[in-house]
């Protein structure tokens, strides 16, 4: 039979887990890009990659302290945003989309190339940068339990730091989007030429938005690299960007808390559907006979896609979105 309490505890562990933190930060960045400014960044995972690897390489290869590594990682995010933005932000929105998705793949292929193994760790991955993070862990016991959900001490430390970063990021985004600065971003999303005719330097605002969102992506990469303690290039593949988009749209684009709640629910759904399918296909007398248990990994995303599709039909504005705004598009 299906063990629902196990499903729920696993789901809750994912709801607050490091994956949710990672995708929440990626989606917060995409929310600045897409939700507020209308920039189509399809390579957010590239920003996470340069954040994580920037920190990892600086600490593991050059012996920088951890805080120095974090600054290098964030700086890499800024540089990537400048490199992508300067040639494309004056052009139509689709050019940025093409360039960002290509850049994220180029970055992944460069980091996994064997000629750079000494530098990036190649396909074997990079480790040996997280010692200071582990040493700072204040939790003494090997494992902690909350309402039946158990976390290892390293995991709990990463979760605490991760959600603190998310909370500070949300605070920063909230302060910015309620200001006249955020109003200009929304105006650019609606109509660039109108903003220009009202004396706003559209290119500069788009560049600032691209950098800010990219830095959130890099921050996500840093948090994730610290929590898993190793960097593997193939983790930073294009579908991750689209999971972050799914989380953003699920929560509601253009809303401060949308990407955070969206990421939490997205990973809760993935975990519950995955657990359900695994339990239903396992054992001597499986509940579902026509699916093999090895197919579950793929089929869970089919079902997640289906749930997202249903959400878009019945609640197109996402969880936090404003129905009035979405109805304008339908006209």
């Amino acid at each position: 039979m299906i063990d629902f309490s196990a499903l729920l505890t696993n789901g809750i562990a994912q709801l607050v887990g490091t994956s949710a933190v990672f995708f929440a930060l990626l989606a917060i960045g995409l929310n600045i890009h897409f939700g507020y400014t209308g920039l189509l960044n399809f390579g957010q995972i590239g920003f996470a990659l340069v954040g994580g690897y920037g920190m990892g390489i600086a600490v593991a290869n050059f012996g920088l302290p951890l805080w120095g590594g974090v600054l290098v990682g964030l700086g890499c995010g800024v540089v990537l945003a400048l490199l992508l933005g300067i040639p494309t932000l004056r052009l139509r929105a689709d050019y940025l989309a093409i360039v960002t998705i290509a850049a994220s793949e180029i970055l992944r292929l460069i980091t996994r190339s064997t000629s750079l193994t000494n530098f990036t760790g190649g396909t074997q991955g990079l480790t040996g940068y997280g010692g200071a993070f582990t040493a700072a862990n204040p939790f003494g016991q090997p494992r902690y339990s909350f309402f039946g959900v158990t976390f290892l001490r390293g995991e709990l430390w990463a979760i605490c730091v991760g959600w603190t970063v998310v909370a500070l990021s949300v605070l920063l985004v909230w302060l910015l989007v309620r200001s006249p600065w955020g109003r200009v971003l929304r105006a650019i999303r609606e109509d660039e030429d109108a903003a220009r005719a009202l004396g706003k330097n559209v290119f500069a605002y788009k560049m600032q938005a691209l950098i800010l969102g990219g830095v959130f992506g890099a921050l996500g990469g840093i948090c994730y690299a610290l929590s898993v303690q190793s960097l593997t290039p193939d983790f930073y593949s294009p579908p991750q960007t689209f999971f972050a988009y799914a989380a953003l749209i699920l929560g509601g684009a253009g809303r401060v808390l949308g990407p955070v709640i969206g990421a939490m629910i997205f990973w809760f759904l993935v975990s519950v559907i995955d657990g359900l399918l695994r339990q239903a296909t396992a054992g001597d007398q499986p509940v579902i006979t026509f699916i093999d248990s090895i197919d579950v990994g793929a089929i869970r995303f089919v079902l997640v896609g289906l749930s997202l599709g249903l959400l878009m039909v019945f609640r197109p504005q996402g969880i936090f979105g404003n129905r009035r705004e979405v109805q304008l598009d339908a006209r």
Partner: protein
Amino acid sequence: MPAEDPFAGVPPEPGCAKLNPIMTMSGITRVFGGLKAVDVEHLEIQRGAITGLIGPNGAGKTTLFNLLTGFDRPNSGTWTFEGRPLNRLAAHRVARRGVVRTFQLTKALAKMTVLDNMRLGATGQTGESFFGALFTRWGRQERAVTEKAWELLVRFRLDAKADDLAGSLSGGQRKLLEMARALMMDPTVVMLDEPMAGVNPALTQTLLGHVKSLRDDDMTVLFVEHDMDVIRDISDWVVVMAQGSVIAEGPPEALSSNKAVVDAYLGVHHDRALEFDADGNPVGETAELVTEMESVERGPDTARDGRS
């Protein structure tokens, strides 16, 4: 019209010098492929007056607007605003200098409230810079901006709509909003691209009143329009463009008697009777005209034959 006629003694001919010009353009050309969309030799815009810019479709009026406001780059030419050169400036810098435009297809920011649309127009907001938004107290300035926005919304009768999304407004209300939003910048020159297009007749009168009130507030208005009644009603001076060039200038009353204007709008042969024989074939002068027109259509070389 102001008490003293600002156009007294100005000869009604293309490129004439005005008594007190606020904008002076010379030698502006803009070429799209082989087509010369704008070719303005010299044009001056009188300060504090309403100048109407008219011409048939494709005359280059909107292209000239785009060039003057920095939304497009010319192939050649210079223009000055209050004695300082304005060409080569980016669109947002032109706007900050005080030359503010509206668009033929209204650009209301649909998913923002009417009030936010208005507040966006205010210039010099410290909270509009990234660090200013975080580290300055922009609240006081925001209140002043909001107050100014309310005054303009009341003047344009949009105050009841302040909290609605701009996308929910009717076409005419969007035109009003766009004009009101432009005024948030305290412009010196307001350039309106077809402000009456797609607006119902009742609202047209309101809009006309607002355009006139801009002149009363010492602003210079340059506007593109097709409707001759509107032109005659509000403009102090009319500039006629055809095929990219200025072909006539003058007070609106003199327009309908100007041969160049009538030819540009109705064609050179508009007053000639057409003659046909019993089979419907053109005869006499009409036949000559048809031959002439067909040769123009085919162009000088008839290499691409069989397409006529």
